[in-house]
Each structure stands twice: as structure tokens, then as C-alpha cells.
């Protein structure tokens, strides 16, 4: 059976060149970079600093401004809690968009309990915030604006240049979660006016467990954990040398191949979107039509539930993602955790429909024949679910009127 991986937004396969680059640091070159008096330690330290230069190059930062972490979740936590901790005397007001990742939104919960006030910026039906509304939301006690670069669920790319301009105008720190965008579209911390920016290696063909937080020189931020003085004192603990070396290599490759990849992915995206539109009725695409990640197609289908669609796709060899609570929270411990996607609710999709959301995210090695295969199997899967759906039955009986 054909196997098609269309879930690159959750993770990407490791680039073979990344594997070649990092393998020597598991065996042979296994030194601890903090023990840099001896040869092994020096090798590890040099490798880390080389990777730091490459990651900095990907986002137009200086190497000293790159703090390696365990991934995007830690970077987002460090940015939000770290700034809050260091800036408490200036103010206790933070502004975020409603569609941020949970590693931003949930990092705010302990801060709220401490007395911080949060403004959640709404988004329009495409998932975009209004920069003017952001400007109006900034107060004298605002210390941080956190707005993501691109949304993983609906693919929308936020107007980050405008966000950065507002932050600079109002003299407020701007944190941008670029997990979904870095390595796929240009990220320039200078143009964006970002003071902090989150990156994750496995989202662009690097290893899992390696992330970074860009911290602009001079930004006041407190560490989250106590320990040694690694990463400029902002992230204690022995560095994940293999992960960091792989991260650096992935950044280097992305700089070389990003533009070409994006062009190819735009073609695949168009092929998939048009094909779905022509083959499946009652389909509703989500996110912005133009300002969106290359290779990202997200939609919901009336009368067809997301997890059921995903299971049938998987049985047919196609791996995709859903914004559906019922599929994304299978490990949830109780029904309380089964809430509709906050992103889909924010763009105005009714909560009982949110469960039908599907995200196809294509990557470097996907091909047009894989899109053809998905287009071939999708109508049958949808039809099968419609045939069992009471609301579709009502719809047919009523001659096309929804209940």
C-alpha cells in the first residue's frame, strides 16, 4: 500500500545530511562542551558554536543572541515567563493572539494566578489579528506582545512586520513563535522587529528535542531553571550536542533549499486544493488563501467528522492531522479535555463543526502522484461517512436544507 506523509506540520523527516552531521557526536566526539579544557570538550564546544552561527544565520541574528533549548515548548515558556519575571516591576500586562500554541497560552496560566493581566487579541475568519487593534490594546504597563508567525492548524501567516512596528513604537517586547514558519519561509528578526523568537529543529528536517530562543541583546529575561551557566546563564544544563549540531545543519540546508522547496510546495498545494474543491462538495477551506504556509491545506467537510476521516485516511496509508478535539486528545483523561480547537473557534467555525477539521501539510519529498492518490481516495471516504451521518440524511431528505 502506498504510504503518504502529509503531516509535516507536526514533524518532518530527518534530512539525511543532518543525520550524517550529528552521528559523530553520539560516538567518537562525545565530549561535554562545558569540559572544554580537554580535546573532547573542545570538539563539542566548537560544534555547538558552529551550529549557533548557522541557526543565527537562518533568522538574521548574531550567534550570541541564540539560546539553545529542548524545543519550541521550552522556548515559548522561557520567553513568556522569563520576560514576565524580569519585567514585573515595569508592568504585569501581556498581549497575545487567541490562536497561539498551547505552550504560550498555558504558560500564561501561572502568571494569571500571580496577578498578571492578559489581553487575548481576536483574529478574523482568516486567522489574522488586526495590528490597529493591537496598537489600541497596548497599555503603559504592557511588557510583552506574543504573536506567532504562522499558525500550524490553519497555515495563516500573521502580519508580523506590523506587529513588530507596533511593539517598537510602544517600546514593548515582541515575542514571535516561528515554530511553524522557520526554515520554510524567510524569518528576519531585524525586519520583524522581534525581541524574542522561537525555533524548533524538527519542524524543518532537523532532530527532535532541539530548539532555540532568539533573545535580542539587551532584552531583560530571567531563566526558568537553576543550575550551571550554559547558554549565557539562560538555560542551565548540559547541552544536547547531537541535537544542536543537527539543528545547525538543518538551518544551513534550509537557507540553501527553502526558496526552491517553497515553489514546489506551492504547486502541490494548488494541485491538492483545486482537486479537493472539484471532487468534494460541502468542503470549507480554512486559513488565509494567500498569506499561508507553502504546502499547507486545511479544511473541514460538512457531515464528516475529523477523526473518522483521519482513521480512514490512515488505513489507506495517508497520514494527516486534525484540529479536532476528538482526534488530537485521544490521550486525554476525561471528556473535559474534549473541547473544540481554539483556533477554529477563534476563526468562527461553530464548535460542533470544528471536529471535522483536517490539515494536510506537505514537505520536501512529497510528489504530485501522492497528491493524486489522496484525491483518488478522499471522495470515497467522505461518501462512506456521509452515508452513516444522521445530519446528512436529514439534509438529503429536506432537499438541501440544514437543521
Amino acid at each position, binding site marked *: 500500500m502506498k504510504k503518504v506523509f502529509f503531516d509535516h506540520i507536526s514533524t518532518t523527516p530527518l534530512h539525511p545530511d543532518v543525520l550524517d552531521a550529528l552521528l559523530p557526536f553520539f560516538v567518537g566526539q562525545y565530549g561535554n562542551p562545558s569540559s572544554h579544557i580537554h580535546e573532547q570538550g573542545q570538539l563539542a564546544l566548537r560544534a555547538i558554536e558552529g551550529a549557533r552561527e548557522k541557526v543565527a544565520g537562518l533568522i538574521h541574528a548574531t550567534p550570541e543572541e541564540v539560546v539553545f533549548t529542548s524545543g519550541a515548548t521550552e522556548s515559548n515558556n522561557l520567553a513568556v515567563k522569563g520576560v514576565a519575571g524580569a519585567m514585573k516591576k515595569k508592568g504585569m500586562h501581556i498581549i497575545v493572539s487567541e490562536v497561539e500554541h498551547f505552550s504560550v497560552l498555558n504558560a500564561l496560566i501561572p502568571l494569571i494566578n500571580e496577578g498578571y493581566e492578559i489581553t487575548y487579541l481576536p483574529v478574523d475568519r482568516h486567522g489574522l489579528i488586526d495590528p490597529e487593534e493591537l496598537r489600541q490594546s497596548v497599555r503603559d504597563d504592557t511588557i510583552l506582545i506574543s504573536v506567532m508567525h504562522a499558525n500550524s492548524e490553519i497555515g495563516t501567516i500573521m502580519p508580523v512586520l506590523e506587529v513588530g512596528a507596533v511593539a517598537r513604537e510602544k517600546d514593548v517586547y515582541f515575542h514571535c513563535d516561528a515554530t511553524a514558519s522557520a526554515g520554510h519561509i524567510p524569518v528576519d528578526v531585524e525586519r520583524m522587529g522581534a525581541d524574542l523568537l522561537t525555533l524548533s529543529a524538527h519542524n524543518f528536517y532537523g532532530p527532535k528535542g532541539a530548539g532555540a530562543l532568539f533573545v535580542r541583546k539587551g532584552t531583560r529575561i530571567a531563566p526558568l531553571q537553576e543550575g550551571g551557566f550554559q547558554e549565557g546563564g539562560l538555560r542551565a544544563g548540559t547541552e544536547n550536542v547531537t541535537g544542536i549540531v543537527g539543528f545547525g545543519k538543518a538551518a544551513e540546508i534550509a537557507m540553501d533549499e527553502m526558496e526552491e522547496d517553497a515553489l514546489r510546495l506551492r504547486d502541490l498545494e494548488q494541485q491538492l486544493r483545486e482537486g479537493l474543491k472539484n471532487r468534494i462538495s460541502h468542503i470549507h477551506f480554512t486559513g488565509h488563501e494567500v498569506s499561508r504556509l507553502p504546502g499547507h491545506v486545511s479544511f473541514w467537510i460538512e*457531515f464528516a*467528522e*475529523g*477523526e*473518522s476521516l483521519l*482513521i480512514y485516511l*490512515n*488505513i489507506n496509508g495517508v497520514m494527516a492531522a486534525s484540529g*479536532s*478535539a*476528538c*482526534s488530537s*486528545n*485521544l*490521550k*486525554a*483523561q*476525561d*471528556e473535559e*479535555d*474534549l*473541547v*473544540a480547537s481554539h483556533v477554529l473557534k477563534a476563526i468562527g467555525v461553530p*464548535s*460542533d*463543526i*470544528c*471536529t471535522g477539521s483536517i490539515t494536510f501539510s506537505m514537505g520536501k519529498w512529497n510528489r504530485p502522484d501522492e497528491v493524486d492518490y489522496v484525491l483518488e481516495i478522499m471522495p470515497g471516504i467522505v461518501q462512506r461517512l456521509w*452515508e*452513516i*451521518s*444522521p*445530519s*446528512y*440524511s436529514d439534509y438529503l431528505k429536506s432537499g438541501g436544507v440544514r437543521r
Partner: protein
Amino acid sequence: MSIGPYSEKVMDHFMNPRNVGEIDDASGVGEVGNPACGDMMRLFIKVEDNVVTDAKFMTFGCGAAIASSSMLTEIIKGKTVDEVLTITNENVAEALDGLPPAKIHCSVMAEEAVKAAIEDYRKKAV
């Protein structure tokens, strides 16, 4: 084939749901929904001489919701109305070799659907 936290039996009832459809002259119809995830289950029963002789369902929902509906129809066919009323969501979940904690509500929906269908039958029978 089991998928993730779903048992082989859940997958079997999801992939090959038993008793899908509607009963035109149903003795009772029960419809329940779960606003949290948008699932909806509609159960049709045919009752003759106080025995459920036929049961069919239509369900919008996840794998567990469809499997619970399918299993429920298998369980209730041939049982008396009183026996059917003693069926709990645990019975449905156990018959499916268990459901993930977050999906227990699907079996609850099945229990509620059958109770609603019996209530409808009794109302019509009066």
C-alpha cells in the same frame, strides 16, 4: 487491526458497522448529541411483543462513537424492553474491549440513545 488506543473490536465495528440505516416504521427513535465534540447518534428500534426485534443507527462522530452505536445495536437486538433498560455504558464499552478514557462519553451517548428510544416507544405505545 488496532489503531492507537482503539482495540481491534472498536476498529472492526468502526470499519464494518453493523445495522447502519433507518427503520421507516420504527417503534421508537432516540436521538442524543454531545455538544462538546459535536457527535450525534440516532437510534431506531422495532419492538414486537415487548422484544426489540430490530435496531438500526445513524451516527456522526469519531471512531468510538460509531463503534459504540454499532455494538449497541448488536447488544439490544432480541432483548426485552426491560432488559434493554438495564444496559449501561459500561456494558457497551466492555463489549468493545474497552475505550480510551476520553472516549467513554461515546458509550454514554449509546446508553442515553437507547433509553431515549425506549421512552419514545413507550410514549407512542400509550
